């Protein structure tokens, strides 16, 4: 903006953007900051859980710190503490900016909802550690938590839906708002039906386990994926200054995800007690999901074509680009664990954890970090302090997450081979425990790297929210070290 002469038009645009940013500032920064705190907690718990898995006596026989309680706490903190909160923050900002609507009223309602989300989550996680875990995956928190969380989520979803409704113009195709609105719509539906089925109905036995697996897949595919895709469809064109390559591909990617996402999940219990068609349908749609995943990947690739050098300078693009790269990777991993030939071998192994982490961390979180690097300076009125901290955050996260994905997958192959090897038929699990050990040690190291990166991210974000960032009109870019020179790219407004 600094390079172009300030015509009345662009000035009016700037003012309008500033007004929109100001209207959502409080809730968005609150969500980001709390999310970052939970992310910190989750990664520390991730290190502990990995260590406890190969050294169960580490830190003594304390009941609170046993693997069976630590692991669900780690995953729940990641999913609901960081994932959903950071997601809601980015969704609200993107929706307001993209539809050009200010958050008119009810800002205090949003703050209250966010506070209640965090209170419920804290009680829920303490409940798991204190011995009230339900042992349903991703729903381990005690029963009283979910209605509060659902109400809090709806308090955020409603203003976003009304912004979308007010701004809708028939001629404008807005793929990022589609994804964001989809996430607003799918999360409550999935969350409500899973919780009602598992906590309120008189007991569904093995079908309950199937619905649980469906819930985890639906949350990944119909909440985390749409939020991250909405963000990448918003930020990649914004930073590169190029329009989305193909509206057709974008539409195809969206609708195929919408149609297939709800069918997957039950293949998690392939060969189990569920009626055989349920896992079969799940496996088929998980493999078919490779199409929308590939289509979106292609579209992103075509949009960035020729602008790849910007990855070196823009922190936002670097994180978003890396996160988008992990969308196809998660899709491939899902297909691997879901089809009946490789999936039978990878069933009940580390590969499942690997998929959860690559989807929620590698794909979703990395994209969201990019979004946060873009959004926060516009809300707090100051620029990121240090290029080194951003670089540090990026590289330690990349190495950590790549290590977790690779080791989990290889560990899964090893574990599956150990479980299904004909010569193991009368052996105990000593060989399996021994073979798994190096992978678990690698996982602990990988989480340590990520903890290190997140510690500095949290410190950096806290300084920004406190308004202690750089006072400058130029964004912090990775190529120039703290030079206050204007970026010759109008897209960075």
């Amino acid at each position, binding site marked *: 903006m600094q390079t172009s002469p300030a015509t009345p038009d662009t000035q009016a645009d700037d003012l309008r953007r500033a007004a929109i940013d100001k209207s959502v500032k409080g809730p968005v920064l609150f969500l980001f900051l709390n999310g970052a705190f939970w992310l910190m907690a989750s990664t520390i718990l991730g290190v502990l859980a990995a260590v406890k898995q190969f050294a169960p006596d580490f830190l003594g026989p304390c009941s609170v710190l046993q693997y069976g309680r630590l692991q669900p706490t780690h995953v729940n903190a990641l999913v609901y503490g960081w994932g959903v909160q950071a997601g809601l923050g980015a969704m609200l900002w993107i929706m307001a900016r993209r539809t050009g609507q200010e958050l008119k009223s009810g800002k205090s309602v949003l703050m209250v909802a966010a506070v209640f989300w965090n209170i419920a989550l804290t009680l829920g996680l303490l409940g798991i550690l204190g011995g009230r875990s339900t042992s349903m995956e991703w729903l381990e928190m005690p029963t009283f938590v979910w209605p509060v969380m659902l109400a809090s989520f709806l308090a955020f979803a409603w203003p976003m839906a009304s912004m979308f409704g007010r701004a809708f113009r028939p001629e404008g195709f807005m793929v990022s708002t589609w994804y964001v*609105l989809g996430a607003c719509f799918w999360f409550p539906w999935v969350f409500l039906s899973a919780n009602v089925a598992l906590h309120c109905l008189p007991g569904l036995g*093995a079908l309950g386990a199937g619905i649980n697996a469906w819930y985890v897949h639906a949350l990944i595919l119909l909440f985390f994926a749409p939020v991250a895709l909405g963000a990448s469809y918003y930020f990649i064109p914004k930073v590169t200054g190029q329009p989305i390559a193909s509206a057709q591909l974008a539409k195809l990617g969206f609708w195929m995800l919408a149609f297939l996402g709800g069918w997957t999940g039950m293949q998690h219990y392939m060969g189990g007690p569920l009626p055989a068609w349920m896992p079969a349908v799940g496996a088929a749609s998980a493999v078919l999901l490779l199409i929308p995943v590939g289509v979106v990947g292609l579209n992103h690739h075509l949009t960035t074509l020729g602008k790849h050098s910007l990855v070196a300078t823009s922190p936002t693009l670097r994180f978003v680009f890396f996160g988008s790269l992990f969308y196809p990777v998660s899709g491939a991993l899902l297909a691997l664990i879901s089809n009946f030939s490789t999936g039978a071998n990878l069933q009940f192994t580390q590969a499942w954890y690997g998929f959860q982490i690559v989807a929620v961390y590698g794909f979703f979180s990395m994209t969201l970090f990019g979004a946060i690097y873009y959004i926060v300076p516009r809300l707090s009125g100051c620029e990121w302090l240090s290029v080194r901290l951003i670089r540090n955050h990026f590289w330690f996260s990349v190495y950590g997450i790549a290590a977790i994905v690779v080791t989990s997958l290889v560990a899964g192959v090893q*574990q599956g081979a150990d479980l299904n090897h004909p010569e193991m038929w009368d052996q105990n699990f000593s060989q399996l425990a021994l073979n798994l050990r190096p992978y678990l040690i690698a996982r602990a190291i990988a989480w340590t790297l990520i903890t290190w990166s997140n510690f500095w991210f949290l410190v950096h974000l806290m300084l920004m929210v406190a308004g202690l960032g750089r006072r400058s009109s130029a964004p912090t870019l990775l190529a120039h070290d703290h030079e206050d020179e204007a970026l010759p790219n109008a897209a960075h407004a």
Partner: protein
Amino acid sequence: MTQFRTFILALIASFGLPWLCLVVVPAVKYQALSPLPYDKEADGMDGYYPPVPINRQGQLVYAREGCVQCHTQMIRPTQLALDGWRKGWGQDQEARPAAPVRSNELRDYLGEPYAFLGVQRSGPDLANYGWRAPERAVVHQMLYAPKSQHDWSNMPAFQHLYVERLAQGPVSSKALKLTGKFAPKAGYEVVPTAEAEALVDYLLSLKKDYPVPAKAAVAATPAP
């Protein structure tokens, strides 16, 4: 505005169909599922399949300690995995049983509010643990100090389910027989709490490979 409505309707339709097919209809139909009587002539036995409800108190302890993170309760069919041929994973404890253990089906978990099929298999499957379980005291010892039985074990020690107390009078008949570094201080004994007893009751009751009544089995297995 009509496009907005079309968009919302398309979202509802695209997600509503799998939601109905995978969650709502099966959940409603599941409510009608009931135990099947055995036929004296065809099955050679009386009673119902599945015979007894599980021990819910023990299952709650199983859930809250997160046993599912490492133990499954699901035998897969032989075309998918070797679970059925594993030694001792079914009723037949012989070294090489004549037939594989049957894979589990929906009715095996009837009466359980939620079936803990499991997340990972870092430890052995427990679907039919009741058949191969050693005597009660040994199961308690495994829970209290897994490494006293296998030095390679990576199972957590659930010492908080047990009480170490001053032995007064003769040693309790329930006290664990621990030796070496796992033994309590002299004059002390380790006894299970009610929760540990419930958990062991539950584990010993895990026998999910009852014979399936001939009627249901014909319907379930495809023609050869």
